[in-house]
């Protein structure tokens, strides 16, 4: 295992502070792990939302994990471009969300031209993560964090979170 591989493995093991069933890598927030000429590890992370309050926690967790893996000098930078999209959540991340009772996002809306106004309730192809029924209803477009909507399953009657496509 090269030094870079070790650094990458350490960084990729860090979990998201708000969705701790996901690693930052599986969430698509970890954008790069590099070795600088001076031996420092350089990590790039991107915010999920402009106001993501967890960036400092992510940075601290990355620094802590990498120091624990023997890297004394760690520099975490913010990558703003390109903007994060739920399409970057890996298949493993989607499976981890579903296993935790959170419905993973569908494909993000395609951009191109002005954003079309939508005055109808959002329609998504969502299935209950517990019983897999498609008979679900939206109870709130905003949930416990900016990235989730609240749904309820009409079949098993359980409420659940859905990660919104963005």
């Amino acid at each position, binding site marked *: 295992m090269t030094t870079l591989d070790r650094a990458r493995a350490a960084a990729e093991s860090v979990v998201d502070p708000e969705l701790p069933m996901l690693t930052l890598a599986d969430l698509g927030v970890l954008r790069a792990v590099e070795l600088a000429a001076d031996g420092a590890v350089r990590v790039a992370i991107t915010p999920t939302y402009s106001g993501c309050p967890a960036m400092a926690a992510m940075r601290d*967790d990355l620094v802590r994990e990498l120091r624990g893996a023997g890297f004394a000098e760690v520099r975490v930078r913010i*990558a703003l*471009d390109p903007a994060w999209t739920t399409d970057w959540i890996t298949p493993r991340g989607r499976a981890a969300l579903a296993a935790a009772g959170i419905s993973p996002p569908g494909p993000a809306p395609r951009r191109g031209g002005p954003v079309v106004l939508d005055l109808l309730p959002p329609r998504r192809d969502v299935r209950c993560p517990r019983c897999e029924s498609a008979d679900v209803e939206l109870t709130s*477009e*905003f949930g416990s964090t900016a990235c989730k909507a609240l749904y309820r399953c009409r079949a098993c009657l359980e409420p659940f979170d859905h990660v919104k496509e963005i």
Partner: protein
Amino acid sequence: MPAHHDHESVYSGLLVNDAHWAFGTDFEDPLAGVDTTVPDGVDPAVLARYCLVLGDDALVLSHRLTEWCGRAPDLEEDIALANIALDLLGQARLLLARAAAADPSCVPALPEGSPVPAEDALAYFRADRDFGNVRLVEVPNGDFAETTARLLLFATWRLALFERLAGSRDAVLSAVAAKGRKELSYHRDFAGRWFLTLAQGTEESRRRVLDALGGLWPLWPELFRSHPVETAAAQAGVGVDPASVAAEVDAVLARVFAAADVPRPEAAPRVGGAGRDGAHTEALGRMLAEMQVVARAHPGGRW
């Protein structure tokens, strides 16, 4: 697959020792490691002021929306407004930080050794006359109908601006806009749906939303009046002249009004100066007094 193990270790760590957690750590630069070089041929003072006024729009409306926390008509809307406020606060933070990086002289001076980062100094240590937000965002919330109507107007306008701003020559502004337009599109849809619901709800809800729209309308033309800093930023290829989005914004609003069977208001523009020049209603001073009081009392404080 270490996620599960780490999940446990993160939380077990919290119970016995929170030293690794973010609370109590120093502030972090929201543009850490981002290249903030001002593009060739752009006056740094123009870029900074332009970022500042766009940031002030978001900051002031964000604060107004947070005034709903714990007081919205129901829990779902409480959470929705808080989430939208958080998005706008995030946009404001990035834009204020970008302003400070482009032209550090725009940042108010604080006592030697103050740990307050530049974007916080701009948010908490400027007087109302130094804020460049449009007046629409500063007037008090009113009822839920007024908050809905204002958010519809603001998000529709800002989304159109950000769609174009994503092509800015300034890489930071371009990235902030590309990110922000995703957020503004669901802010606009949220407000548009509620506008429709209220307009077609009960007699009382319709009366309220019509009153709200009519009351806000005199402040609406100000958003499309090109201010010299916007014109200069547009000419330098980093900003957008708001007059250039007027037709597009009008078309979107016309669709909402048609769906809601709401006539377009005809109220005359409000007199007085422009918010972009620091000429505000007295509501902004009152709002800032509350927003800034703790920070101003403790310029050396760590949070």
